[in-house]
C-alpha cells in the first residue's frame, strides 16, 4: 500500500462518513459540526491534489465563515425543539407519492455511480507527474489574468448577497432615524 492510497482513502472515508452523519443526525448543531469534519477532510484532499491555496481557503471560508454562520443561525432560531421528528401525527398523507419517487431517484443516482465506479476504474488514467504552479503566486496569476472578469463578477455577487442579507433581515426598529431610539 503506497502513500497516495493512504492519503486518499483515509480522508475520503472520513468525508463520506461525516457527510452521512450530517444528513442523518437529529440535532442540527451536530449536523453542522459533522459538516465541519467533512469540509476539513476535503481540504486535506485538496492538499493532496496540489491545491494548497484552495485547501486553506476551504478551511477559512467553509469552516471559519459559513459554518459559524450556520451555527449562529441554529442557536438563534433554536430549531431543535421546534421541528418534531418524523412519524409525528399530522404528517401523514403529505408526501405520499413523492417519497417513492425520491427513493427511486436515489437508486438511479446510486446505479449511475456504481456504473461509473465499475466501468471507469479499469481504464486507470493516471495523474501526470508534472505539477502546475499552484502556489498563491501561480494561482493569483491565473485568477487575475485569464479569469479577471469572473473574479470581478464574483465581487459584485458578494456585494449583492451582502446587501440582500441586510435588507432581508432589517427590522422596523433599525429603520428609525438616528437619535429617535431613546424616545420609545
Amino acid at each position, binding site marked *: 500500500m503506497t502513500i*497516495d492510497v493512504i492519503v*486518499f482513502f483515509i480522508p*475520503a472515508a472520513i*468525508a*463520506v462518513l461525516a*457527510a*452521512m452523519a*450530517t*444528513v442523518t443526525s437529529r440535532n*442540527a448543531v451536530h*449536523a*453542522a459540526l459533522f*459538516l465541519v469534519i*467533512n469540509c476539513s477532510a*476535503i481540504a486535506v*484532499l*485538496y492538499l493532496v491534489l*496540489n*491545491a494548497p*491555496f*484552495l485547501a486553506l*481557503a476551504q478551511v477559512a*471560508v*467553509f469552516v471559519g465563515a*459559513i459554518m459559524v454562520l*450556520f451555527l449562529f443561525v441554529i442557536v*438563534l*432560531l433554536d*430549531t431543535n425543539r*421546534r*421541528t418534531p421528528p*418524523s412519524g409525528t401525527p399530522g*404528517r401523514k398523507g*403529505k408526501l405520499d407519492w413523492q417519497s417513492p419517487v*425520491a427513493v427511486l431517484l*436515489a437508486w438511479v*443516482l*446510486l446505479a449511475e*455511480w456504481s456504473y*461509473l465506479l465499475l466501468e*471507469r476504474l479499469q481504464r*486507470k488514467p493516471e*495523474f501526470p507527474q*508534472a505539477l*502546475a504552479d*499552484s502556489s498563491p503566486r*501561480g494561482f493569483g496569476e*491565473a*485568477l487575475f489574468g*485569464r*479569469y479577471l472578469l*469572473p473574479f470581478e463578477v*464574483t465581487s459584485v*455577487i*458578494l456585494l449583492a*448577497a*451582502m446587501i440582500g*442579507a441586510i435588507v*432581508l*433581515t432589517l427590522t422596523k426598529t433599525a429603520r428609525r432615524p438616528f437619535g429617535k431610539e431613546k424616545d420609545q
Partner: protein
Amino acid sequence: MITVTHYVSLSAAMFIIGAVGVLIRRNAILMFMSVELMLNAANLVFVAFARHHDHLDGQVIAFLVMTVCTAQAAVGLALIVTVFKTRRDVDIDEINSMKE
C-alpha cells in the same frame, strides 16, 4: 494507484448523500447544509480534474464556486431567519402559504 476516477467516485458519493439530504430533511437549515455538501462535491471534481490535466483552470473555477457558495449561504440563512420571524418555524412542509 489513485486516479481521477477515485476522486470522481468520492465526489459522486458525496453528491448523492447531499441530494438525499435535501430530499429527506424538512428542517430548512439542514437542507442548506446538504446543498453545501453538494457544492463541496462539485468543487472536489473541479480540483481533481485540474490535477488530472495539470492546469490551474479547475482550481480557479473551484475558487469562484466557493465564493458563490458563500453568497448562497448568506442569502439563504437571511431568508430562513425572515421566514422564522413570520412563521416561528423553519419546517419546509409548513411553509406553503404561496400554494393557497
